[in-house]
C-alpha cells in the first residue's frame, strides 16, 4: 500500500534472535548484506538460549554455537527490545512497524527473514488458569531468564520431549519435581530408525538427571485438574487410556505449589500471515508457513526459518536459518553461492525434518483430552469464555467453525488474540461437527493485523501521510 521512496536501509531484516534468526543474520551478513536483527528481548538467544547477564552457559545446550553466533553479530545491526506489530509490502521490499519502549519506528528492508519461533501449546483443563500453573516453556523461561523457580514442589505434565529438559532444569535448580506426566506413549519412538540420529542422547541425559533427583517419569498420565483458591495447591493426576480418556478411578491428588504443562508448540505466524504467505498443516497439527528449498515463503522476498515453518528444535532451526540467511544474502548482494555448502545444509535439513516428523508422530495430541473439560472450565482466559459457552455457540447459535465461535462468544478476542485458546477452540468446534481440526480452523483464529499491542498515541504519532 504505502511506498518508501528511498532505498531501504537494510538488505535483510531478520525477525527473531533465537537459533534460526541468529544463524540467518550471521549467514546473511557473511555475504556482505546490510542486516538488521530485530528482537523483542534485550539479549539475543530467543527462548532456547534465554539467559541472564553474565550467564556462563553451564546449563545451556550448544552454548559454544550461541557464543560464536553472538560474537559474529558485530557485522549485524541488532535492534534489541523492538517489537514488530505490523509488516507491510512496499515497492522496494518491506516496511516493519515496530515499537521500542512505547516509541514507534519503521524499519525498511529489501528482504525479510521470519524466525519468530513458537510458544507453548496449551490444552485447558479444570483449574489451569490458577496462579502457579505455568506453561512448560514459561517455567523454563523464568528459570533461565531470571534464575527464579516457579515453585518448590512442581508437577510437570503434557506431551513431547520438551518436558524432559524443563523437568531436569527445575530439579537441577533445586526444586522438588514430583513427577513428569507424559500423556503419550513415546516408547515406540525410541525404536524408530531416525532416533539413531543421536538426538536420543540428549533425552537419555535428561532422564538420567531426573533419576538422580528421584523424579518419576510416567507415561499415559496427565494433570487433568489443578486445585487451589488463590494459587495452585494440588494437581489432579490421572492415568489415561490410549485415546487420552481418563481411566476411571485413577485420579490422585499431588500437593504442589506449581504445575508446568506443555502439549507441544504453536508457531508464531502473525508476520507471514500479514504478508499473505501460504500455510500448511504440519504433522503435529500446527499451522506453519510453506517454504521451498531456499526457505522462501510464497510471497516474494519473504524467507521463513525455524519453528515458524515447522516445529523441529534448535538444530533444525540453525540449519534453516543459515539457509535462509545465505539465500537472502546471495539475492541481495549478487554474490556467488557455495553450492556444496548449500547441499550439505539441505541434506542436514532433510534428516532433521524427518526426525522432527517422527517425533511429532510419536507425540500426537489425542482427542480424549476434551473429556477432561468441565462445563465451567475456562477456554479463553483473556475473555473468560468457558467450555459450555463455546458449546452453546455451536449448538444454539450455529457456529460451524472456530472463527464463528469467536465472533459469537469472544474466545480469542482478548489480549492474546487467540494465541492461547485458538487451538482448543478449534478442537472443540471440530469435535462437535464430527471432524478433525483443519487448516482453515486454525487460520480463522490466527489472523492478527496488529501483531502486538501498540498505543494509539504511538500509532498516530507519525506525520508521514
Amino acid at each position, binding site marked *: 500500500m504505502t511506498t518508501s521512496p528511498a532505498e531501504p536501509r537494510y538488505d535483510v531484516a531478520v525477525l527473531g534472535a533465537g537459533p534460526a534468526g541468529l544463524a540467518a543474520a550471521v549467514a546473511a551478513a557473511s555475504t556482505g548484506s546490510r542486516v538488521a536483527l530485530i528482537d523483542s528481548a534485550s539479549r539475543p538467544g530467543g527462548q532456547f538460549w534465554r539467559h541472564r547477564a553474565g550467564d556462563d552457559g553451564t546449563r545451556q545446550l550448544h552454548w559454544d554455537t550461541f557464543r560464536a553466533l553472538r560474537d559474529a553479530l558485530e557485522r549485524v545491526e541488532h535492534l534489541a527490545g523492538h517489537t514488530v506489530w505490523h509488516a507491510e509490502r512496499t515497492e522496494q521490499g518491506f516496511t516493519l512497524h515496530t515499537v521500542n519502549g512505547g516509541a514507534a519506528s519503521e524499519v525498511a528492508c529489501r528482504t525479510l527473514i521470519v524466525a519468530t519461533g513458537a510458544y507453548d501449546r496449551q490444552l485447558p483443563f479444570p483449574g489451569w488458569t490458577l496462579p502457579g500453573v505455568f506453561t512448560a516453556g514459561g517455567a523454563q523461561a523464568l528459570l533461565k531468564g531470571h534464575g527464579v523457580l516457579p515453585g518448590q514442589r512442581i508437577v510437570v505434565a503434557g506431551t513431547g520431549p520438551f518436558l524432559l529438559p524443563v523437568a531436569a532444569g527445575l530439579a537441577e535448580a533445586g526444586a522438588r519435581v514430583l513427577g513428569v506426566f507424559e500423556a503419550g506413549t513415546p516408547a515406540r519412538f525410541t525404536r524408530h530408525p531416525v532416533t539413531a540420529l543421536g538426538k536420543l542422547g540428549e533425552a537419555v541425559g535428561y532422564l538420567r538427571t531426573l533419576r538422580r533427583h528421584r523424579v518419576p517419569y510416567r507415561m499415559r498420565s496427565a494433570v487433568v485438574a489443578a486445585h487451589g483458591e488463590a494459587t495452585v495447591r494440588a494437581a489432579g493426576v490421572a492415568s489415561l487410556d490410549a485415546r487420552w480418556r481418563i481411566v476411571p478411578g485413577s485420579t490422585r491428588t499431588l500437593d504442589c505449589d506449581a504445575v508446568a504443562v506443555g502439549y507441544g508448540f504453536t508457531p508464531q505466524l502473525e508476520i507471514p500471515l500479514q504478508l499473505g504467505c501460504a500455510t500448511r498443516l504440519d504433522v503435529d497439527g500446527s499451522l506453519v508457513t510453506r517454504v521451498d528449498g531456499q526457505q522462501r515463503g510464497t510471497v516474494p522476498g519473504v524467507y521463513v526459518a525455524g519453528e515458524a515453518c515447522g516445529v523441529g528444535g534448535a538444530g533444525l532451526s540453525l540449519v534453516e536459518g543459515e539457509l535462509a540467511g545465505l539465500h537472502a544474502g546471495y539475492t541481495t548482494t549478487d554474490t556467488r553461492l557455495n553450492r556444496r555448502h548449500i547441499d550439505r545444509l539441505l541434506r542436514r535439513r532433510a534428516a532433521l525434518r524427518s526426525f522432527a516428523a517422527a517425533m511429532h508422530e510419536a507425540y500426537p495430541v489425542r482427542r480424549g483430552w476434551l473429556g477432561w473439560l468441565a462445563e465451567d472450565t475456562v477456554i479463553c482466559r483473556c475473555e473468560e469464555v468457558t467450555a459450555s459457552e463455546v458449546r452453546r455457540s455451536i449448538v444454539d*447459535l450455529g457456529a460451524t467453525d472456530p472463527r464463528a465461535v469467536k465472533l*459469537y462468544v469472544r474466545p480469542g478476542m482478548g489480549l492474546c488474540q487467540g494465541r492461547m485458546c485458538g487451538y482448543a477452540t478449534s478442537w472443540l468446534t471440530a469435535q462437535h461437527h464430527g471432524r478433525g481440526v483443519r487448516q482453515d480452523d486454525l487460520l480463522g483464529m490466527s489472523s492478527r493485523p496488529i501483531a502486538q499491542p501498540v498505543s494509539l498515541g504511538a500509532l498516530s504519532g507519525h506525520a508521514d501521510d
Partner: protein
Amino acid sequence: MEVARTTADVLVVGAGMVGAACAYYCSAAGLRVTVLDRAAIAGGTTSACEGNILVSDKEPGAELELALLSNRLWAALGAELGAASVELHHKGGVVVAKSPEAAGGLATLTAEQRRHGIEAVDVAPDRLFELEPNLAPDITAGAHYPQDMQVQPMLATAELLRRARRHGASVHTGTTVVEFLRGSGGEITGVRTDAPDVPTISAGWVINAAGSWGGSLAELAAAPIPVLPRKGFVLVTEPLPPVIHHKVYTAEYVANVASDDAALQTSVVVESTRAGTVLIGASRERVGFDRSVSIPVLRMLARQAIGVFPFLSDVALLRSYLGFRPYCPDHLPVIGADHRAPGLVHACGHEGAGIGLAAGTGHLIAQLLTDREPDLDLAPFHPARFQEVTT
C-alpha cells in the same frame, strides 16, 4: 450423506444481519424459510462492523424513514430476544463539532431531523461534558440522539436465526448458490448449490441478502444491481472501565456517509462495547475487495479518535478488522421484487447501516411476501430505480 429435497416458500441467500432479519420476520409470518450462506453465519460484513442502530446520521429522505421504523423494531426485538442476549444497548449517540462551520452544519441538520421525527437535542458545551466527561476540551458544540442504539451484530444474527429455526426455518452454511433455477415462464423457482446435501432448493421467492456480494448474486440471476464494496477499518483497544458512554462521532461523519468521493475518508466514530473494548471506526474507501491493511488509514483513525478523546493516546490498540460495506450509487438499499426476474427479491446494499436497517428491511420483506401493505413505501428502494444506469 442424506440428500434433502428442499422446498421452501422463501429461500434467503446470505446469513448476515439482513438475511437473518428476513428469515426471522418471514418465518414468524408463517412462511417456510430456508437460509443459505457460502460461509458461516454472520461471517461477512456483519462480523466487521460496529453494530450501529443509528438515526443520528440520517438526513431527511427514505432512509431516515426506514431508520425510524427499524429503530422501533429493534427496541421490540430487544424486548423479545432479551437485550442482554444480543447486547442491545440504548446508549444514545453524541455528535460533536470543533469548528464553527461544523457546529453550524450540525445545528441545521438537527433542526431538519427534528422535523422528521428524530429526537435530536442540541447540547451546550457544559452539558456535553456531563454526557461525555472525557471529551477533548476544544469541542464547542454537540447534539444528543437518545434513540441511537448498539447491538452485538454477530450475536443478533445468530439469535434471530435461532428464532427462525424454531419457526421451522433451516440454515445451510458452507453452501454456495451456483445457478438459479427457472420455470417455463422464465421465473425463478429456486437455486442449485455446490453442497451435496442440498443440491437444489425450490422456493417461491429467493431473497438476495448477500450484502456486499449482492451485486454478483444478482448478476448470476441476470438481474444486475449496482452494489459495490466500500472498505472500512475498525480499531479495537484493550478493555477499559466504562469511559465512553455513548456512540460518539464527529459532525463530519454525516457528510462522509453521503459522500460520492472514491478517495479515502475517515471521520471517527468512538464507542465502548459491553466487553470494555473501545471501537474506533470508520474509514471509507472504494478499492474493491482489497483485504490489505493500510497503516495510513489506521493512523488517521487513531489521530482523529485522540482528537475527540485525548486519553486514548495512552490506550493500547489490540486488534483491527476490516470489512466491505455494500453501497449503491444513491446510498439507498435495494429492497423489493426484481422486475426482470420474477421470484427474485432484493434485500441488500445497506452500506454502513445494515445492522440498523436490517430490522425494517426484514419486516417490510415479510409484509411484501405475505401480501400485506408495507409500513413504508418501498418505491425509493426498488431495484427498477437503476434501470437507466444498468441498461
